[in-house]
């Protein structure tokens, strides 16, 4: 049984102008220990695929026309809200793009971490290293201990003191580390990271990627890394899926796809990366290349 198996996923979104189909037959299979990069332009449906895995698209705006998502055998699209909550935070961790807006500004870092840890422990007390019949106070105290541990693990110095600080007291890179801590504290089996480094500068970006890589090795989890940065994919991922206009054009091990891209779009995407040798005026947009290819 695969960790995650998406088969023929078709999603339509409603707006004032009517319903538009966004995802056209997405197929994707992720196993433990694999780091998948999902690349594509803005609006190609990467993020919506990621949100669909945790079923976070509100029923009022999104409608699945066909297809299925199976996470460790659970049928995500037909599960109850209760079953989904068991997965979220505990089995599936999520990190979003902007660390400045994804932490609740009115609460201490520790409060948010502890709540996520307590939630994960509801379904699996071993997350806190406790047996099932621990008292509320014991669980709170254990959750705090685990939170401090987790902050240390993502590279926050003095976690015992920093746990009671507020998000605005940290830099962007630090906040992204905290979001990773929040996503990882429930010991998930799948981590979905939606452009986790886009809002960060290059050196911090490298640190964060290294951190994610380390956590994957340590815990043998599967990762879906949504990004439009092919450099990130080459650096971190074992597999890659290329998305364009709601379709997956090409999937495979990262070396194969980046070295011998079989699809014209993937070649266009690769050609759109400037190198040191690119001369002024030589860099071409994806649109031009695709137009030439017909």
């Amino acid at each position, binding site marked *: 049984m695969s960790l995650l198996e998406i088969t023929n996923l078709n999603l339509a979104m409603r707006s004032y102008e009517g319903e538009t189909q966004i995802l056209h037959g997405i197929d994707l299979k992720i196993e433990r220990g694999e780091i998948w990069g999902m690349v594509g332009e803005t609006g190609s449906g990467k993020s919506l695929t990621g949100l669909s895995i945790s079923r976070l698209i509100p029923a009022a705006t999104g409608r699945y026309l066909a297809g299925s998502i199976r996470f460790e055998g659970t049928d995500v699209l037909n599960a109850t809200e209760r079953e989904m909550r068991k997965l979220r*935070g505990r089995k599936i961790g999520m990190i*979003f793009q902007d660390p400045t807006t994804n932490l609740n500004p009115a609460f201490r870092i520790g409060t948010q971490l502890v709540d996520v840890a307590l*939630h*994960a422990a509801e379904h699996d007390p071993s997350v806190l290293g406790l047996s099932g019949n621990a008292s509320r106070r014991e669980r709170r105290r254990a959750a705090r201990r685990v939170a401090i541990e987790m902050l240390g693990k993502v590279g926050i110095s003095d976690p015992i003191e920093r746990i009671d600080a*507020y998000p605005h007291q940290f830099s962007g890179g630090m906040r992204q580390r905290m979001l990773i801590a929040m996503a990882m504290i429930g010991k998930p089996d799948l981590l979905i990271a939606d452009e986790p480094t886009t809002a960060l500068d290059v050196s911090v970006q490298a640190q964060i990627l290294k951190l994610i890589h380390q956590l994957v090795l340590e815990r043998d989890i599967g990762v879906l890394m949504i990004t439009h940065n092919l450099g990130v994919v080459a650096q971190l991922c074992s597999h890659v899926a290329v998305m364009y206009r709601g379709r997956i054009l090409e999937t495979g091990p990262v070396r194969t796809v980046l070295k011998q891209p079989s699809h014209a779009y993937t070649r266009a995407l690769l050609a759109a990366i400037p190198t040191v040798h690119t001369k002024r005026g030589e860099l071409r947009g994806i649109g031009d290349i695709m137009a030439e290819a017909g």
Partner: protein
Amino acid sequence: MIRYVIRRLLLLVPMLLGLSVIVFAIARLLPGDPAALAAGPNATPEVLASVQREFGLDKPIPLQYWDYLTGLVQGDWGVSIFTRRPVFEDIVTFLPATLELVAAAMLIAIVLGIPLGLAAAVWRNGVLDYVTRTVSLGGIAMPRFFLGLLLQLCFVTWLDILPLSGRFPLIDLPPEEITGFYTIDSLLTGDWYALRVSLAHLALPALAMSLSPLATIIRMMRASTIEVLQQDYIMTERALGLSSRLILFKYVLKNAMTSTLTVIGLYVSWLLGGTVLVETVFDWPGLGLYATQAILSQDFMPVIGVTLVIAIIYLLSMLIVDLLYGVFNPKVRSS
């Protein structure tokens, strides 16, 4: 924190000083002679002159202001020309009634407004949302005195379950005075009869006053909750499995409170300054009624006194709101 409070309190002094100049000038420069009114229409010039001398009205206005100001800091807020009672004592008598009314109205508005606004945001465009929206619109649009009359018609004339007006039955003895709030005093002394009676008297005027802050709090709370619900961090919290109840009552509520707090602070002072109409309709012996009578008889000492008291309460409530911002928004605290 304490230094901040002290600094803010010290800032009150120049503000009140400036205000006292303005109010004193306006009250004294208005046409009409309070001494003439006090002395009566048939007073001889000699009597008039003696009244003017008695209240110091014959001195030049700047000197009158100086006398007033030096008295003010010593707790002498002047004497009412009509009742010949010290203004300070009058204010001490009437202020608790008004504060109790405003506090009750705000309590109703906050206790009902915050959950209703929250619910209207969560079930947006649902039945509750439409009902609160309609009632809110009515609440803002309807004058308070008119609402007071409607309430009297409904609860007194038709249902006959609440007293028409006043603060306590004239034939009864109000509870022993501790705070001057009848409800709190009767609670403190364990006088359950007095509690029931004072609550019954308080209900209609408080309700009449609460509707417009209630309406505004609902609208404010609804708008800010909707805004907070769309924030990225709420999506993160949902994605990590926190229950909708925890997210709403803990993580959303605290963020949504900040803007609602501003409205609450503003309404406290707005109600204080505008109790006159409701106090008149319900014959509520408060500051508003006292001030109106003083204005109508050009009795300027009480007018200035009441204005200063309202200003002090206004500035203090703003200070409390600013301090509460820090509770709800940690970013404010550090700056």
